[in-house]
């Protein structure tokens, strides 16, 4: 069973215990307390069992208890710890499914900050009173996330904008929290004889968080994606107004459309949901396979469709460059799975950066076979379904010798999101079909 977030945490602008939340000593203690609790719920029962000679039961209830403890800690602390949880929730290849499912709640359970705090950040960053820049600024946020919230506003020239504002004091909190978590991970790895490799994961989350904290980078990413589709291919990337943006405040063109999963609204606008899916797939396939740069967070809240059929993609906080040759390597992997060519699968996994400690490449075949068994025909037919991605991550987790490139995990997650959207609209998210090669 998945626990709901405590009621108070859903209340916008609660400002709950803000003073305490900002206290570094308290934050360090809160992380340590959670770490000790989790260590205890895993270790004490296993010692007891060993003493009494009892068999090992399913660990799922323990995983759930641990995940709830982490979730409670994150919701209480807010800020960067929420980001860490969101990072864990994307790594089904490392963490048990029960943990991932529970921590996914972090995506929706972020309360908004008080308007006064937001206003102070905007004024400090832009160096002007709020009303010198905006003729109108909605005090209620359009959305709130772990690091920032977004408000609707209007510039003095009449342009409607969305203003993304970073929460105050975040950089210091990030340092404190990530240091606390890193110490907790070190202690865990020291005591546990077969630890999950948490430190590389934490380094990855730290890198991603640092990227997301600099809004200028997000503006650059939006520009990059706009450039990829500069030939008028029906993709809308909101314009960033650089003169009203800084590292902590992002002022963007306000774009509106139909949420991509609202089937009835799409049909009412005269759109063909099948074609919408095809267009959406072509956008992401082009970014990932061809351009080597992609928006890595295409959940339905970040995708809208205009009645003209143009697709709006927002939120470039998590965007990534892929290494040279990654697109071709991924194409070769999918292709080899389509043609059941096992030697080509091994080559492709290796080219993508998968590694085993002892060089045994049979593990790659095990992973590929597990993915393909999720298909009706026993071969890859072009769609990365959620089940297939789940199977992939399970297989990777159960074969801990495998070193998995982060980019592959992010891309797998993107296609899993897209498959979910496609199925909501009654269609399939076929990657190979979306590549649109002229046969």
């Amino acid at each position, binding site marked *: 069973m998945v626990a709901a977030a405590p009621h108070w945490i859903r209340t916008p602008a609660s400002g709950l215990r803000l003073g305490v939340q900002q206290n570094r000593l308290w934050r360090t203690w809160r992380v340590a307390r959670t770490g000790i609790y989790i260590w205890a719920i895993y270790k004490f029962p296993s010692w007891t069992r060993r003493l009494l000679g009892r068999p090992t039961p399913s660990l799922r209830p323990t995983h759930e208890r641990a995940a709830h403890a982490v979730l409670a800690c994150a919701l209480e602390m807010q800020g960067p710890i929420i980001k860490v949880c969101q990072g864990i929730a994307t790594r089904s290849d490392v963490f048990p499914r029960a943990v991932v499912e529970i921590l996914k709640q972090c995506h929706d359970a972020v309360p908004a900050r008080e308007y006064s705090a937001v206003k102070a950040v905007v004024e400090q960053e832009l160096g002007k009173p709020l009303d010198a820049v905006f003729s109108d600024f909605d005090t209620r946020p359009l959305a709130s996330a772990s690091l920032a919230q977004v408000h609707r506003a209007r510039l003095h020239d009449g342009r409607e904008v969305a203003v993304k504002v970073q929460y105050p004091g975040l950089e210091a909190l990030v340092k404190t929290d990530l240091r606390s978590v890193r110490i907790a991970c070190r202690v865990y790895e020291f005591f546990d004889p077969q630890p999950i490799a948490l430190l590389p994961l934490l380094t990855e989350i730290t890198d991603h968080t640092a990227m997301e904290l600099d809004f200028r980078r997000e503006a650059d990413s939006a520009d990059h994606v706009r450039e990829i589709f500069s030939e008028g291919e029906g*993709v809308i990337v909101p314009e960033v107004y650089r003169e009203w943006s800084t590292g902590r405040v992002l002022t963007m063109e306000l774009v509106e459309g139909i949420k991509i999963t609202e089937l009835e609204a799409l049909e009412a606008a005269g759109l063909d949901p099948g074609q919408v899916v095809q*267009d959406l797939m*072509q956008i992401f396939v082009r970014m990932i396979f*061809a351009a080597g740069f992609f928006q890595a967070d295409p959940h339905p809240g970040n995708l809208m469709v205009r009645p003209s*059929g143009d697709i709006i993609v927002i939120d470039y906080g998590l965007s990534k460059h892929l290494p040279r040759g990654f697109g071709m390597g991924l194409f070769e992997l999918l292709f080899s799975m389509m*043609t*059941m060519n096992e030697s080509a699968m091994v080559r492709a996994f290796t080219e993508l950066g998968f590694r085993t400690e002892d060089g045994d490449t049979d593990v790659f075949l095990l992973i590929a076979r597990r993915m393909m068994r999720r298909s009706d025909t026993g071969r890859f037919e072009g769609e990365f379904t959620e089940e297939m991605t789940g199977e992939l991550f399970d297989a990777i987790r159960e074969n801990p010798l495998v070193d998995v490139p982060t980019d592959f995990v992010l891309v797998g997650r993107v296609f899993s999101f897209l498959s979910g959207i496609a199925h909501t609209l009654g269609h399939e998210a076929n990657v*190979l079909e979306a590549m649109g090669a002229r046969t």
Partner: protein
Amino acid sequence: MSTEVKLADDRLDYSLEDLLASGDFAEPLIAGGVRCHGGFDADGVYGSPRVLHRKPAIQAWQRALQAQGHELLEISSDLMPPQYPSVDQAVLLCRNGVREPVVRALTIISVVEGFGAIIRDVKMPDLESIVVEPFHGTALAHLAGGLFEAHARDEAGWGDEGGHKQMWEAARDLAFESPEIPDDVLMRIMGGPGGRGRPRKRGFPQIDETFERMVGLMSNVLIVELFAEEVFRWGKAVLANPEISAEPEQASAMVGYIESDENPHVEYLRTALSEVAARNLRTSDGAILSGREVVHGTLHSMLRQITRQRPEEQRAQVRENMAKLFTQAENPSALREEFESLEQPWSPPPHTGFEPQLPDSG
């Protein structure tokens, strides 16, 4: 030893296994370290895969169609656009150390060949409810029963046996000694999202959409397969040139093997489309529509589009970063001048041969 069996009778029905069956080979084809399909007989003659029954079957279906007084579709070779850069231009570039456009072209060909495998996933319509006249014992009746699958395996390979994709890669790697692959290959192949969420425009909205899509895909593949003749001519000429190719004999022979494998694809596709053209179709509202109108109409619009747009697109893509590439040569301006002097303008013929027939005015 021949890999195909001459049948005394005109057998018209074949199982999936029949249509996928290959003969025995004395030697396998191994290209670039990859075991490929097909193989060699005792005299060293290359034999295509999966033609033991497929080839005689196609010939039998063609004879049966003609015996009923129908014609096989013919697409004029005049419609075939030339490959760009031309053989002379490609050789000139490579001789001057500018190999990227040729390596890119060969890689694109290999990827596109591989994509041929999607033909096996084409959604099959309920032919019995659409085609008015019987079609038992035709290529049309065997599309999902082995013809599409054999085609897919030929193009993309199957299991640990490479197909045309891997054979083109091997030809490229033999000639240019495993060159670095330009990282924009997939960008060049892919289109952007062009649908704008709108329902696809249909040429024949009165017939079943799945059937229309199948005819469209088969027509498109047939045109590409036919026009590939020019690609083979180009590939063999470029790769056989000892001035620029490290393994001229092996590399050009590889293209020759692919070329010989393609013949059954062209023949089964034009046979099945001719069989549709020789029959009538039931529309969604129960009326009757001539199959000829659908097949000829589809081919006409595709040929017009392909012969008018694609050569220009291909030329524009190759020339896009040419200025930068010329600078790799010792004397960029001389190379540019010579390259331009080898340009051979091409215009598509005014007619496709499948123009809609206007009603008699008299």
